[in-house]
């Protein structure tokens, strides 16, 4: 004999639908509250991130946790590639120029490229140094006025964990879209 699941009666369906409506209505009413709570978390985390001129989130969290700043003394991979290309270009140019392949305007144009590269490289290096020097000053600059925010961020991150905070930020973004 074939088994036929019993259809729920209209009486059963109606209360279930009403229950669902009650829940949805209550959840909607909580939406603003939820958004405000997420915003508090986001604001405190963003304050931590704002502290870092490089906008590095890990560094922001390190600041919040009261750890020392850490900037890699070595060049980043991108910088190494850039410096490598500048050196390679300069070497090719010098070789071609020495052997008289490049002359006149063409020589000047080709020469201007590595000069531009070297200048950009030096500017980036200088900016890195400035950032490195300025980070502790940036923190000092905010002074006591930021202590409260820092403590709030520290508390939030320690209490919920960084992953949870990130998760909450994501949820907040979704909620914001719903609004």
């Amino acid at each position: 004999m074939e088994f036929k699941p019993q259809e729920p009666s209209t009486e059963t369906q109606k209360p279930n639908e009403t229950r669902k409506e009650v829940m949805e209505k209550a959840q909607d009413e909580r939406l603003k509250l939820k958004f405000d709570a997420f915003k508090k978390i986001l604001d405190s985390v963003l304050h931590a991130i704002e502290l870092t001129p490089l906008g590095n989130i890990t560094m922001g969290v390190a600041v919040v946790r009261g750890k020392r700043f850490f900037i890699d003394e070595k060049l980043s991979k991108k910088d190494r590639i850039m410096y490598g290309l500048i050196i390679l270009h300069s070497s090719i140019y010098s070789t071609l120029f020495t052997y008289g392949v490049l002359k006149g305007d063409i020589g000047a144009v080709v020469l201007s490229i590595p000069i531009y590269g070297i200048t950009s490289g030096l500017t980036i290096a200088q900016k890195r140094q400035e950032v490195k020097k300025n980070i502790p000053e940036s923190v000092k600059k905010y002074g006591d006025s930021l202590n409260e925010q820092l403590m709030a961020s520290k508390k939030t991150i320690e209490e919920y964990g960084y992953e949870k905070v990130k998760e909450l930020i994501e949820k907040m973004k979704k909620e914001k879209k719903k609004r």
Partner: protein
Amino acid sequence: MTVNNTTKEYLEKLVADLMKSGEDKEELSMWVDLYDLLSPEERETLVNNLEKELRDLEKLK
């Protein structure tokens, strides 16, 4: 009579009752997590909202 109680313990009790009534576990757990971040007014709003939902759901039993 509505008990005006905004302690975390009371919130946890409300949440547990609502979970039994079929409310979304994830959403309710989140409120317990967020409790410390809420201002006293927000806590009251939340508790009132949850109490009302629980009352409405119990009426439908």
